[in-house]
Structure formats: C-alpha cells, structure tokens
C-alpha cells in the first residue's frame, strides 16, 4: 500500500466521525473498506489523477451528506449556541465595563460586572464541551469500527446493534 493510499485511508477514517451515527455504526467499516478498494483501483488505473477524482467525489459526499447533519447534531449545536450566547451577552455587557456616566447610579458598574462574569461562564465551559463532544463522537466511531470485526476478522451485523 502506497503512502498516498495509507494517508487517504487514515483521513477517511477520521471523516467517518462526521457521518450520522446510525450510518457510521451500521456501515462504517464497510464504507472504509469500499473507499480503500476504490482508491486503490483508481490509483492503479489512472495514477494520481484517479486518486484526486475519488477525493473530489468524497469531498462532495462529505459536504452533502455529513456536514449538514453534523452541524445540526446536539454535540455541535450546544457549544456553538453557548459561544453565540456568550458573545452576545459580552457585547450587551460592553457598556458595563465603561466608567459610569453622569446619569447612572453608583453601584450599576459593580452589578453589571458581576452579571458579566456569570454570563461569561459558558465561554469558559465551551472548550471543555467541545472536547467532550468530539471525544464522545470519536469513541462511538472507534467502537463501531473495532466491533465491526470480531477476533477472527469476521464482520458482525452492526445494523442490529446500537451504541451510546
């Protein structure tokens, strides 16, 4: 197996993380196998041009089938909404960090500062949420790919199993 095929195979295995969970768990191992075979045949018949053609198709499929579902999944929606909420709140609090104007009560600055801190909390928690959701998705894929084969390399019917 050439370096190009090995690298492509690894990248595709990572891209599988973004496909819907039921597809990944039911057919993830087969998809990886079919991709490897198609890529090897394309390289054998058309060289690098064939490899690029397979990748062009794969990228198209990824944008059409994986990305919309991934963006709408709770694992992505929650952190993104959290960031958006934090950013929105910080913008709203921006006047609070400015010095009190002549018409403002003396403790308004402190109240706004405290409120800003409370609302910034999701911003700090977001990286942890992102990392957690990514690891959860990756774990599910690894389980599906690993369990796709039993000890003898025999494929198990994963469509009858559910993970997570």
């Amino acid at each position, binding site marked *: 197996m050439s370096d190009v095929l090995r690298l492509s195979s690894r990248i595709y295995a990572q891209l599988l993380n973004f496909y819907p969970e039921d597809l990944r768990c*039911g057919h993830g191992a087969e*998809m990886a*196998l*079919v991709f490897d075979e198609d890529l090897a045949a394309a390289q054998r018949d058309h060289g690098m041009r064939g490899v690029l053609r397979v990748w062009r*198709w794969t990228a198209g*499929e990824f944008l059409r089938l994986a990305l919309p579902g991934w963006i709408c999944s709770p694992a992505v929606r929650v952190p993104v909404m959290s960031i958006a909420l934090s950013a929105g709140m910080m913008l709203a609090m921006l006047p609070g960090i400015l010095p009190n104007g002549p018409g403002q009560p003396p403790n308004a600055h402190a109240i706004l500062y405290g409120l800003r801190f409370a609302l910034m909390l999701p911003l700090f928690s977001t990286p942890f949420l992102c990392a957690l959701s990514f690891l959860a998705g990756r774990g599910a894929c690894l389980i599906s790919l690993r369990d796709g084969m039993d000890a003898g390399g025999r494929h198990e019917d994963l*469509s009858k199993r559910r993970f997570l």
Partner: protein
Amino acid sequence: MKTYDQPLQPAAFFILFALATGDKHGYGIMQEARKLSENRFTLGPATLYTTVQRLLRSGWIEEVPGPADHDPRRRYYHLAKQGRAAFQREMERMEALVRKSKALRSRPAESRS
C-alpha cells in the same frame, strides 16, 4: 390521464439494477453501477451505504451470507421481492416515457405545436 409512480432516485435505481444481475457486496455494487451507466454515474461510499441502509429498512434489499470463501469483512446484498417489483415498475415507467418521446419525435413538426 395515466399517472406515473414517483421516479426512483438514481442511486437507488442503480443499486437495484446492480443487484438485479446477482447478489453483490458494496464494492461490487459500485463497480456494477459504473459499468451499467457506462461510467456516467458514480456511487461514492457514503451515497452507496446511505441508500443501502434505506433500501434495507424498506425491505427492498436484504443481507445474505456470502460465498464460502468470501472476504469476511464484506457483506453481501440480495434484491428482495419488493425491490424487484419496484425496479420492474421503474423500468416500465422509463419504457413508457421512451415510447411517448419516440411517438412525439415521429410526428410531423407542424402537428406538435
């Protein structure tokens, strides 16, 4: 007026077409679809298995054990009775369209407008 069934999506049509020629694994379906369409239609792995999953759920195709000496990583698929009927309906729909199109072409130009 005659009504037509909803046409099959190209991926579903070519999977059913490929399986009508015999039981196949995923890569076999991909190759057969390419051959049947004379390289005009390519099924990528994600399109292939998204459609296979849908066809399995609707009972149009089914998983069958492969030949004795097959690669254990592969899963084989078979065209079920319902799938064969749907494929037949689609072929009839296409034939009817071709007949209509030929009839239209054979008419003199002035009578078409």
